[in-house]
């Protein structure tokens, strides 16, 4: 076709921002660095809109193949971009929400060091993420996959002087790498079976294959699907590889919003949706995806119930919501998964940015209970825009009718149930209840408080997460002797509140595109994999919706009761169920378990066997041994040259005898 959309310009713009800030950021003022950093993403968003404006003038998928990257033998991998409905949606989300977060960062990071480095890395991340969603083959997607992992590592460890941040960055990268191992195995199998990595070619071949049996875990498509999903559990923080995401909160809050809520963690969901053709024909893998998604949703939601740090609440919430997206994919309702991905980008991005606004207002304090103490009268009176946008996002995530999350989450639960998976539907619904509860708990604790709004308020500086300490309820603010910092908690500047408001509108209205499954029908051509989906259930959508709404409202009510109405009850409940409470507070001791079972043995093997044994012992031993042996040999030989005449004579005589013997023997 004649239409050239120049898709490559979209990632290229972000990459140029990275280069510019990397090379010249030191020389520019902060304003210039921000203009470049935010501007390129804005330009990329406009570019994406321009591309969208041409929608309809071509037959999807639109392929844009540039020069080949690898071309040897039968292996052909081009630098190619693909635009179809799925990548269009992802493109708009990444550039749109990305732009808003970049804008927000300009305000949030205004007082931080490393300003241009931040924007350079954020632009680099955008570049890789766009490569990931626009790629037309698995290997190019993998470049983006790895690249966003790298950018995430750099950004989590942005405050690199802090040990916890550096370790969190490493943890994220290493855990991701474990997932990537599975992903690579999947890629190798794909090439082995289909001889190509390009989506169109792979899927056209897959469509010729039959659907594998539901119990058969070792069919070729199932193994591929499972291996790819291992990669997705790493990237999208599902059980068992979710452990890096809560630690990733060490990074700056806009990073958490962009990477760990709206975009990077959704890469796994995107990949599974892209591979829908494979997953539809591998029902065992589909069940695994569904099960892990549901379990993760519940598991993470349960941990979020007892968190004190506002960002940690949101981190576990993200893990949980990603579980919902995978539930949808596992139930072959990929459209619902993408829909939730979109609404989640809106409301979770908003939640994180709002949390950042709170942290900014409270000068670095992240513990919700301390915030409640430090803002007499409730933070909502000091930072109303932050408060109301945060409430909008919370209603969205809790599934309050009318907000975007209501439509998407409801669609997922209905799809899961109508596929016959009653157990997982129940798990998902329970998780929805917990979600609503802990989110409203966060709202009520952070923004509501006792007392009169004051104009003078002292609070400590510092950006570390709060350590655990006991909270009694209406004790007066203690330890407020040092009155450094900004002073009174205050609303954030416009560069931060404007994105909040825009995202709030999206979180409010973004769900209406899903009415009547319009969004799903838009995406249908992508997910038309040739495998019919049987709708099994007898329950109508109305009943399911009703139950979900009841759960949402119930969570709200319980949170209201425990945290606004009757304040001592929460602690009494915690004391009454102290074992359970301790388990949740310690995150089910998963990190400790991994440490004991994986980290300690590995470091022991590395230290004692590989380092001391093989490297020092064997390799150094061989090298030193060669030297030692030659020294010993020469030491022995040296004795022959003694200067002693008689020994020389003896050697000559012995040599002569040997020569004679040789002549005699050889002459026979």
């Amino acid at each position, binding site marked *: 076709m004649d239409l050239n959309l120049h898709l490559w310009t979209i990632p290229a713009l972000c990459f140029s921002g990275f280069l510019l800030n990397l090379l010249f950021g030191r020389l520019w003022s902060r304003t210039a660095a921000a203009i470049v950093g935010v501007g390129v993403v804005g330009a990329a968003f406009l570019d994406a809109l321009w591309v969208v404006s041409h929608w309809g003038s071509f037959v999807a998928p639109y392929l844009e193949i540039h020069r080949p990257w690898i071309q040897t033998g039968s292996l052909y991998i081009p630098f190619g971009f693909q635009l179809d409905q799925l990548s269009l949606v992802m493109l708009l989300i990444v550039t749109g929400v990305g732009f808003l977060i970049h804008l927000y960062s300009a305000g949030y990071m205004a007082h931080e060091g490393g300003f241009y480095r931040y924007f350079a890395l954020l632009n680099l991340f955008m570049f890789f993420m766009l490569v990931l969603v626009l790629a037309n083959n698995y290997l190019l997607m993998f470049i983006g996959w790895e690249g966003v992992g790298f950018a995430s590592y750099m950004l989590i460890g942005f405050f690199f002087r802090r040990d916890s941040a550096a370790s969190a960055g490493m943890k994220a990268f290493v855990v991701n790498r474990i997932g990537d191992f599975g992903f690579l195995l999947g890629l190798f199998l794909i090439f082995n079976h289909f001889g190509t990595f390009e989506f169109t070619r792979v899927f056209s071949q897959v469509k010729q294959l039959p659907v594998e049996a539901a119990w058969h875990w070792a069919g070729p498509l199932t193994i591929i699907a499972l291996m790819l999903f291992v990669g997705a559990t790493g990237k999208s923080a599902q059980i068992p590889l979710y452990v890096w995401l809560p630690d990733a909160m060490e990074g700056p809050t806009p990073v958490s919003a962009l990477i760990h809520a709206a975009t990077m963690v959704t890469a796994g969901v995107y990949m599974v949706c892209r591979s829908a053709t494979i997953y539809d024909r591998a029902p065992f893998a589909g069940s695994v995806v569904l099960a892990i998604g549901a379990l993760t949703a519940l598991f993470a939601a349960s941990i979020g119930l007892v968190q004190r740090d506002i960002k940690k609440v949101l981190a576990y919430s993200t893990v949980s919501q990603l579980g919902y997206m995978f539930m949808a994919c596992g139930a072959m309702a990929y459209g619902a998964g993408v829909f939730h991905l979109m609404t989640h980008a809106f409301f979770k991005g908003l939640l994180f940015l709002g949390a950042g606004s709170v942290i900014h207002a409270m000068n670095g304090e992240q513990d919700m209970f301390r915030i409640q103490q430090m803002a007499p009268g409730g933070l909502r009176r000091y930072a109303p825009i932050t408060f109301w946008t945060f409430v909008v996002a919370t209603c969205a995530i809790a599934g309050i009718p009318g907000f975007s999350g209501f439509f998407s989450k409801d669609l997922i639960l209905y799809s899961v149930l109508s596929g016959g998976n009653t157990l997982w539907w129940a798990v998902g619904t329970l998780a929805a209840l917990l979600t609503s509860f802990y989110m409203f708990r966060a709202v009520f604790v952070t923004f509501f408080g006792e007392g009169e709004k004051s104009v003078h308020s002292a609070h400590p500086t510092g950006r570390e997460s709060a350590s655990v300490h006991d909270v009694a309820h209406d004790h007066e603010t203690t330890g407020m002797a040092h009155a450094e910092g900004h002073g009174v908690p205050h609303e954030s500047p416009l560069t931060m509140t404007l994105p909040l408001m825009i995202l709030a509108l999206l979180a409010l209205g973004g769900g209406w595109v899903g009415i009547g499954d319009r969004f799903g029908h838009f995406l249908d051509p992508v997910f038309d994999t040739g495998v019919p989906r049987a709708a099994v259930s007898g329950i109508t959508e109305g009943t399911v919706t009703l139950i979900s709404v009841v759960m949402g409202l119930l969570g709200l009510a319980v949170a209201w009761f425990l945290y606004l109405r009757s304040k001592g009850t929460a602690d009494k409940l915690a004391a009454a169920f102290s074992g359970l409470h301790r388990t949740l507070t310690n995150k089910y001791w998963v990190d400790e378990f991994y440490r004991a079972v994986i980290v300690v043995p590995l470091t022991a093997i590395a230290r004692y066997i590989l380092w001391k044994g093989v490297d020092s012992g064997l390799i150094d031993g061989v090298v030193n041994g060669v030297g030692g042996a030659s020294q010993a040999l020469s030491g022995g030989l040296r004795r022959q*040259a*003694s200067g002693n*005449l008689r020994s020389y004579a003896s050697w000559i005589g012995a040599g002569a005898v040997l020569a004679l013997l040789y002549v005699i023997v050889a002459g026979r």
Partner: protein
Amino acid sequence: MIPLSYYLILSAILFCLGVAGFIIKTDVITVFISIELMLNGVNLSFVAFSHFLRDIGGNIFVFFVMVVAAAEAAVGLAIIIAVYRNRTTLNVDKMNLLKL
């Protein structure tokens, strides 16, 4: 006739005695005597073969050997005298300046 082997065995014995003396003795003069003994043992072997193979070349070679022996004895004794003047000892073990 005396068989060839008798001459050869005698020659071998003389040669081995010469080698033994050369290796075992500590006095330099005695070492030289042993060298002469070795040479004469070889001379005997040449002469015996010359007689038994009726080839005059063996006898001629003996002359060569004797000339070489004489020259070598002369030079060797000159060296011994020079060494003695430096070291006042004729113990061959003490002449060990060639060591590394």
